[in-house]
């Protein structure tokens, strides 16, 4: 077993490091701290932020990969058959939920089912052929038929519920203890001298969201040992597993694209606005040209080219994982290269405005170099625009992934993604009886993420955008 760093892993961890660095430097600024406090003061934004960090946590867990090597020949057959499942590149998340990945059925089965969804031919001992619903290999195997499935599930809900209560209690204790330490023991003093209850963060909403999320998580985790909670797909794979694995793809496309887009938009936007003249003309020409190409078509054209290139150079890639990962990386780059124009135009206009202000004129008169002026006086004043654009783009990119996968220019078909799930589900909906759970799972996971991102970005916009008063 050894670490494998896929390209997107490296990028996403770089982004995390950058974010940590940014948070550390921001903590020093009183003003920015107040802004963030303001953002999180809304209960909706607080809940949305917690949901988003949950998704991010899953994406990060799924971004640490290991390479399992083949077992040596002298190991017993039982070990070897176990090891067959443990081959190839696995992520930390795979290791945390091994049963989801390995307990595959033969074909479709509904959520909480004990038997397959459709009948298949069966020969009994006397050679009579009959149509039967075959029992599942793993799902519902503990079920004896004494109680109904619903009763069984209800009983089994108690354990995750207790677990969640304990976890929340622990978190609450740490929270209280932290407040205690911060006030150096003058706990009662501290709480009696609170200036205004309105200046408190909405802890009620925060704990409620946390409770719901941890409960859902532990419920799914616990019950997935007994049932296929969200059913299985055509080849018998657990739908819950696919939906969880898709988190990484969605979050990465939303996050890393901004990482690609940001430098382009910042550098080009600021230089166009600050230097004006021919620089401005060239940059304006560049983004008008890019903008005039229909977005999906430009992405499609670029992805088609990439596909041809990958097909022609299949010897570049060691494994299918690497190929799929490189495709994801390319897609992220292409999305980044086609989506910087909007932010660039905003930054250019704002830079034009700022560079007329007195303090910039003063800085020029003092003989500061353009680079210093941009770094010290202009960039910090653009940050609210950048932040707004980033959170706004995130949800759009997550949604775009699904559409692109449908068009056939999205992520690799072997990569787990909500787009691929929807794409498959389209055919399943036409079946009789309908196979609805794949689509439903993709919908639920995607909707939660996008809704949280939209609500959060709304709040960020309200707080940071000076023009928005409503």
């Amino acid at each position: 077993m050894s670490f494998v760093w896929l390209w997107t892993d490296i990028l996403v961890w770089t982004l995390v490091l950058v974010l940590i660095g940014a948070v550390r430097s921001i903590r020093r600024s009183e003003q920015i701290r107040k802004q963030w406090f303001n953002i999180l003061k809304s209960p909706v934004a607080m809940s949305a932020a917690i949901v988003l960090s949950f998704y991010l946590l899953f994406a990060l867990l799924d971004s640490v990969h290991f390479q399992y090597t083949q077992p040596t020949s002298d190991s017993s057959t039982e070990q070897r058959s176990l090891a067959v499942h443990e081959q190839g590149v696995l992520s930390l998340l795979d290791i945390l939920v091994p049963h989801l990945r390995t307990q595959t059925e033969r074909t479709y089965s509904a959520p909480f089912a004990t038997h397959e969804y459709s009948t298949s031919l069966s020969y009994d001992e006397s050679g009579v052929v009959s149509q039967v619903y075959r029992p599942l290999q793993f799902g519902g195997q503990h079920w004896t038929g004494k109680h109904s499935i619903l009763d069984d599930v209800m009983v089994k809900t108690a354990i995750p519920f207790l677990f969640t209560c304990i976890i929340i209690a622990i978190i609450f204790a740490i929270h209280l203890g932290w407040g205690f330490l911060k006030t150096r023991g003058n706990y009662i003093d501290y709480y009696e001298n609170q200036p205004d209850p309105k200046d408190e963060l909405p802890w009620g909403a925060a704990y409620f969201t946390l409770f719901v999320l941890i409960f859902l998580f532990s419920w799914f985790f616990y019950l997935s040992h007994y049932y296929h909670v969200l059913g299985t797909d055509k080849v018998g794979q657990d739908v819950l597993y696919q939906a969880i694995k898709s988190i990484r793809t969605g979050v990465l496309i939303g996050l890393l694209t901004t990482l690609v887009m940001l430098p382009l938009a910042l550098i080009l936007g600021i230089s166009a606005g600050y230097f004006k003249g021919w620089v401005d003309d060239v940059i304006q020409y560049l983004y008008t040209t890019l903008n005039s190409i229909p977005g999906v078509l430009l992405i499609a054209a670029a992805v088609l080219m990439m596909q041809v290139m990958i097909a022609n150079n299949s010897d570049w890639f060691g494994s299918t994982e690497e190929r799929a990962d490189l495709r994801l990386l390319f897609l992220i780059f292409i999305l980044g290269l086609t989506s910087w124009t909007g932010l660039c135009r905003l930054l250019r206009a704002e830079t034009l405005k700022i560079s007329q202000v007195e303090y910039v004129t003063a800085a020029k008169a003092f003989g500061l170099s353009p680079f210093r002026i941009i770094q010290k006086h202009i960039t910090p004043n653009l940050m609210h625009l950048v932040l707004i654009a980033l959170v706004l783009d995130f949800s759009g990119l997550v949604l775009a992934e699904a559409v692109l996968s449908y068009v056939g220019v999205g992520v690799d078909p072997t990569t787990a993604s909500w787009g691929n799930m929807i794409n498959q589900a389209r055919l399943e909906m036409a079946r009789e009886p309908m196979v609805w759970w794949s689509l439903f799972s993709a919908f639920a996971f995607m909707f939660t993420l996008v809704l949280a991102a939209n609500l959060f970005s709304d709040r960020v916009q309200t707080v940071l955008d000076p023009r928005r008063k409503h």
Partner: protein
Amino acid sequence: MFEYIVKRLLFAVPILIGVNVITFSLFFMVNTPDDMARAQLGAKQTTPEMIQSWKVENGYDKPLFFNGDASGLDKIQHTLFVQESLKLFAFDFGQSDSGRQISADIQERMGPSLAIALPTFIIGLVTNIALALLIVLFRGSRLDTITMMVAVAIMSVSGLFYIIAGQVLFSKTWHWVPISGYAEGWEGIKFLILPVLIGVFAGIGAGMRWYRSIFLEEMSKDYVRTAKAKGLTDIKVLFGHVLHNGMLPILTGVVVVIPTLFMGSLIMESFFGIPGLGSYTIDAINAQDFGIVKAMVFLGSVLYIIGLILTDISYTLFDPRVKLS
């Protein structure tokens, strides 16, 4: 006015050349004339001579951007890039891989695309503005908050879900309308109802929020206060003043879109089996037919630039303060 339009059209030329450079580089860097020759000549043993003769026959034997062998202007003129781009500027898109004329195909498919895109656009616009005006009347109330929450929720659902859910409910379960298909004339309406409705509904969330914020911004201006001080009712202010003044920012967002309606909607058309330009493009992407994709990219950029010019012209019609120069 006429002078201005001509000037703007001339400005469009460098942009279109830029678009061509991008698409040309994308396509020819990977799919070189050699590859095209090999694909066209088939799987049988192809010799370099055969490839060369195919390239000469089809005019692909010239260098990509710069012809060192020629003299003077020909150095640039006798290249694949100029040759291919000039064809595009004359709207001659050549043949698709299946041997059909792309220009003829496009003309044929524009109708169905418009049949679905135009009603979606107009009904959507009217619905969104009407809903936004209604919600502005109730601004600050609980109804406003709840409606905005619902709008965010509508925005957060991928369009694919609306289509699939719509098809399952209205076509598969209730059998109100056919699942997919297309017919000319009045016959075709039954095929169009569902895609248009879904298109309108999917756009309500974002549209309503956008128009609401425009109207609210207008409401905070001085003239609204004056009008109210004169004793005008909320409704009169809204429809008499705010709607008119709000048209300007609305125009910026809306007029650009109108020409691109010709391009159709990729997803709608392919889900509902409408033989428009959107499904044409998707089929081309799936079949890796580069000729069609290139043609659609060029067409899209031309329509977008026309949209920009139309936006400017519409400004002069609605805002007497704006003079084109």
